[in-house]
């Protein structure tokens, strides 16, 4: 007790207090704000790269292939050429995917089954093949794909070759039959050379029967004999099998199984950026509008009608805040989307859309709905009900009063709500990636594009300029959009002069208001709650019971560890900042800090994460290489405003007279804070802490934008969906949601007991 008191006294000393505040400000400015916007500086230093890779006539080509399961797997190679019949060699190599080229683990390389080639000329069509290389240097070539839509060429699919030693000096070659409609022949290649390249010189047989799938060849023992088989179609295009044969000591030697190139798509780099950004903004604006149209009546209902089950209703509305977005995204996509790869969806799914725009908009409404209702409700709460009464006694019907009095006074709250909604929807990554993967959509929005490119940039550093440009664009446009929205809301002239008493009276009574309430509730249930909770139904299907969750538990532990540390640090640094903003005598300092501390709020987290990663890898003053540390810093950056906002809000509500009275009664500043202020704003701090925790656990964008290797729970869920493990993803999502809830309840209980 005595020691605690001495500590408080020391902390109350002016120099100590000042020093601490200065530390808090510096930490914020240098380690949160600066890294958040660091990407802007890259545009200056790396402008040449930006103009070379982004603003030029280059295209970005996405390749996706199946994962290699080869035991000796060493890496992939992506090759491109304008020649449809090219054979991959050093001159056609575009991207190397192996542990050395990406400084990553072998497993990461193996899982990297997509890449982006961004160095090809946009005005030409290209042909792509992907190679798998193993430890012995043996390679397997995938089928070819073209990004040239005008090309009439078709390519056969890969086949697999095995040899079997029947007897003596004969070998039997067996291959999988080609299904190619345009089949012309199989070509058999033979060499005694272990790493041979098939060519006219070593072709040993042509087989024109498509039904044929084996042949016997003479292979005297001992000796090394290696074979490949090609499928050739009528256009002369080929696909090649793996290489199989026996070595001089009679062992079978197998090259890796070739992977199957499944998807290529090219687009001018700039086009893909603008396309993604446009999608983001489209979805964000429409979702915010929907939020407003429905959120306003709901907020009104909550505050003005103050129903008996108001608390429960509030909790329901807040549910999406606690749900990790990747889980919600998966859930909503299952509910709304036509999901080609997924069978056995339980009852209730609507499955009505395959359009990414519609799905994302619906999804964003789920995510952002609470961000609209909360501020609207709280500003309504503040607006004296008496205004309505005054208007009533002046002869205004309820509708007229709302339209002419309450709504115009609403602007400030509306600005907050719209800012939050826009920021949230522009920033959302995990949910988007999960949803798009669920409906197997290739279209991406800006944050998902950052995620994809950042993932690919591990093996393709030339993507960094594009990422920087995209992040910059996203940040700038977000800020602009939010400022424009604010300007419109604050300045828009509302038509409040003219009143139509009869008409508005009819709107105020009878069935109209009732219908409105019913509609709003239906919306809340069908559009927000059902899609969010649908995952539990899916996770409860019998097939899901056998899911292997080991990987998920690891990622969950990782997530909670990060979120715990982040919450602690944000509390320690955010509370003093909140106090500074709310109570600093110099209002100019206070409002500057206020504006600055809100910036991370409106910076989309994926862009923020990328910027942060760039900062830590570029600056050399503080050597931080640990990825988890950078992830923690990134999570601190985007959660920081939650605590600051909450503390500021609570302190602004709390009359400074309490602290002042405490001091005139003899309390040192820290004593006053501990005994008077803190207990009174505790609940706000708590809710800030819960927000921080849940946002950190649920965050995908900032995490993958820092490091694609960090497997937090939502990142893991997204990767599960992408790889088609839907049931595991479903169970994992449900568990993640439940765990998030449990932690929230625990924190609440702990703090309550502490009081």
């Amino acid at each position: 007790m005595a020691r605690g008191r001495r500590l408080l006294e020391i902390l109350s000393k002016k120099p100590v207090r000042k020093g601490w505040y200065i530390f808090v400000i510096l930490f914020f400015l240098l380690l949160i704000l600066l890294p958040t916007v660091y990407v802007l500086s890259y545009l200056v230093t790396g402008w040449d790269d930006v103009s070379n890779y982004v603003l030029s006539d280059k295209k970005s080509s996405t390749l996706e292939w199946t994962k290699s399961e080869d035991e000796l797997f060493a890496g992939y190679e992506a090759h491109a050429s304008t020649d449809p019949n090219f054979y991959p060699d050093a001159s056609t190599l575009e991207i190397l995917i192996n542990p050395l080229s990406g400084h990553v683990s072998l497993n990461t390389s193996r899982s990297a089954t997509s890449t982006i080639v961004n160095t090809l000329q946009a005005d030409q069509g290209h042909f792509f093949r992907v190679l798998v290389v193993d430890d012995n240097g043996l390679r397997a070539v995938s089928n070819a794909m073209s990004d040239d839509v005008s090309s009439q060429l078709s390519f056969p699919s890969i086949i697999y070759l095995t040899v079997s030693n029947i007897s003596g000096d004969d070998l039997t070659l067996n291959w999988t039959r080609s299904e190619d409609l345009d089949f012309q022949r199989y070509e058999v290649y033979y060499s005694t050379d272990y790493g041979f390249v098939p060519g006219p010189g070593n072709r040993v047989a042509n087989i024109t029967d498509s039904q044929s799938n084996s042949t016997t060849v003479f292979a005297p023992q001992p000796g090394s004999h290696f074979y490949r088989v090609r499928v050739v179609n009528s256009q002369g295009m080929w696909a090649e099998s793996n290489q199989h044969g026996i070595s001089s000591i009679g062992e079978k030697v197998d090259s890796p199984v070739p992977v199957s190139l499944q998807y290529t798509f090219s687009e001018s780099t700039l086009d893909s950026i603008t396309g993604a950004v446009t999608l983001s903004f489209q979805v964000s604006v429409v979702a915010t509008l929907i939020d407003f149209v429905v959120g306003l009546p709901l907020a009104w209902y909550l505050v003005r009608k103050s129903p008996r089950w108001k608390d429960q209703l509030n909790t329901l509305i807040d549910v999406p805040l606690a749900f990790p977005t990747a889980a919600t995204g998966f859930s909503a996509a299952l509910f709304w989307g036509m999901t080609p790869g997924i069978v056995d969806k339980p009852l209730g799914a609507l499955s009505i859309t395959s359009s990414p725009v519609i799905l994302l908009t619906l999804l964003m409404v789920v995510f952002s709905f609470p961000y609209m209702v909360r501020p609207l409700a709280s500003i309504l709460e503040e607006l004296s009900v008496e205004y309505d009464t005054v208007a009533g006694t002046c002869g205004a019907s309820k509708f007229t009063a709302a339209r002419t009095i309450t709504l115009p006074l609403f602007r400030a709250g509306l600005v907050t709500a719209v800012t939050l909604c826009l920021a949230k929807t522009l920033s959302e990554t995990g949910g988007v990636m999960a949803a798009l993967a669920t409906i197997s959509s290739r279209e991406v929005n800006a944050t998902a594009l950052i995620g994809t490119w950042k993932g690919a940039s591990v093996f393709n550093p030339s993507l960094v300029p594009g990422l920087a440009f995209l992040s910059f664009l996203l940040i700038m446009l977000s800020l602009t959009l939010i400022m424009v929205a604010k300007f419109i809301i604050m300045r828009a002239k509302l038509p409040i002069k003219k009143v139509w008493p009869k008409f508005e009276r009819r709107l105020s009574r009878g069935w109209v208001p009732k219908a409105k309430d019913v509609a709003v509730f239906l919306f809340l249930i069908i559009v927000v709650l059902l899609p969010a909770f649908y995952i539990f139904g899916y996770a409860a299907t019998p097939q899901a019971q056998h899911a292997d969750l080991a990987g998920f538990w690891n990622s969950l532990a990782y997530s909670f560890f990060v979120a715990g540390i982040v919450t602690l640090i944000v509390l320690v640094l955010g509370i003093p900042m909140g106090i500074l903003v709310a109570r600093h005598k110099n209002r100019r300092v206070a409002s500057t800090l206020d504006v600055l501390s809100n910036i991370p709020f409106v910076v989309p987290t994926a862009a923020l994460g990328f910027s942060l990663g760039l900062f830590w890898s570029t600056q050399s003053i503080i050597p931080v290489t640990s990825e988890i540390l950078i992830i923690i810093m990134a999570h601190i950056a985007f959660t920081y405003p939650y605590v600051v906002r909450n503390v500021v809000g609570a302190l602004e509500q709390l009359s400074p007279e309490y602290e002042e009275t405490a001091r005139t009664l003899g309390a040192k500043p820290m004593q006053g804070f501990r005994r008077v202020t803190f207990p009174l704003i505790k609940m706000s701090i708590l809710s800030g802490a819960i927000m921080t925790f849940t946002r950190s656990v649920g965050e995908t964008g900032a995490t993958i934008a820092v490091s694609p290797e960090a497997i937090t729970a939502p990142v893991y869920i997204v990767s599960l969906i992408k790889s088609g493990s839907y049931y595991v993803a479903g169970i994992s999502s449900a568990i993640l949601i439940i765990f998030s809830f449990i932690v929230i309840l625990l924190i609440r209980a702990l703090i309550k007991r502490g009081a």
Partner: protein
Amino acid sequence: MGLELRKISKKFGEVVALSDVSIRIEKGEYLVILGPTGAGKTTMLRVIAGLEELDSGDILLDDKIVTKADPEERGVVYLSQTYSLFPHMNVLENVEFGPKVRDWNPANRERIVSEMLNLVRLQDRVDAFPHELSGGMKQRNALARALSTNVRTLLLDEPLRALDARLRLSLRTELRRMSKDLGITSLHVTHDQEEAITIADRIVILRKGKIVQIGTPAEIYDNPVSPFVQHFVGEANFFCGTIQEKNEEGSLVKCDGLKVSATATDIPVGSEVCVGVKTERCHVTRGKEEGLNKLPGTLERELFLGRLSSIEISSEYGNLKAKVLAEVSATMDEGEDVTLHFDRDQAIVFPIPDEGLEKELEVE
């Protein structure tokens, strides 16, 4: 010596809250600071408490300069309008707050806390939380909290404002009595002139950050230094005119066909002046009478106040007001001819204010 303010000034941006204010307040004095909203009253308390920094000037407590001292070092307790009882603490915990943060030994603490709770008669409500207390109890709780810190100076910011009017009448004297019994120096801010007159040892009239007058209630009431003071502390009727003659005993002022015999003045003969008479010092009789300091007119309206009635008379010299005993007004009817008169001693001569009389009399 209790408290001294030496030429203190304070500005908020462009707004002058206090300008060159100097006062000496004796130990144990009950000083009331009276003024309209925005006069700088609250600022004055806040700078004394150390809650605002001064732009210039010095504050002395017991002859020691404390201008730069932290609030907790001054031994001055500030009670805001709403009392600022800590809402998460009960009556007892609120009272214990001061002793606890000072880390007094528990025995000592308990003694003083129970003493104070007894003093304010809240010993039976120690477990109640502020929101469960009535307005008067809150005030007593806040007082006990302040007194338990061995406070020497109490700053009361409109302590009665939050209470019902009738309760205010009962509680205002109680405040003064408690402060006097404990020998505490009190500064009590109010905008209510009746409250000020009733409880103050001395009153400071503050307006636009400046001290207009300091004096005992009787001095302020009977010898106002300006029309504003005369009008603000009880209403007054004013007549503007020029001094026609004067001697040591009185003066004669001519105002548009009306001659007013007023108190003596230094202002030279022929100067434009205004003469103010407190409405409570006017008499009203039935019937029309002419003569010096007699103003005939018609009784326009009577407002019953209880002991007194406020009477409005329309006369050729403008609308006049008088406050007379209710038993007197009971004999008169609205619309009746009456005469308002006053004694020479009650008619005080002032120079015409710089900004004109109307501006001078504004109470907001």
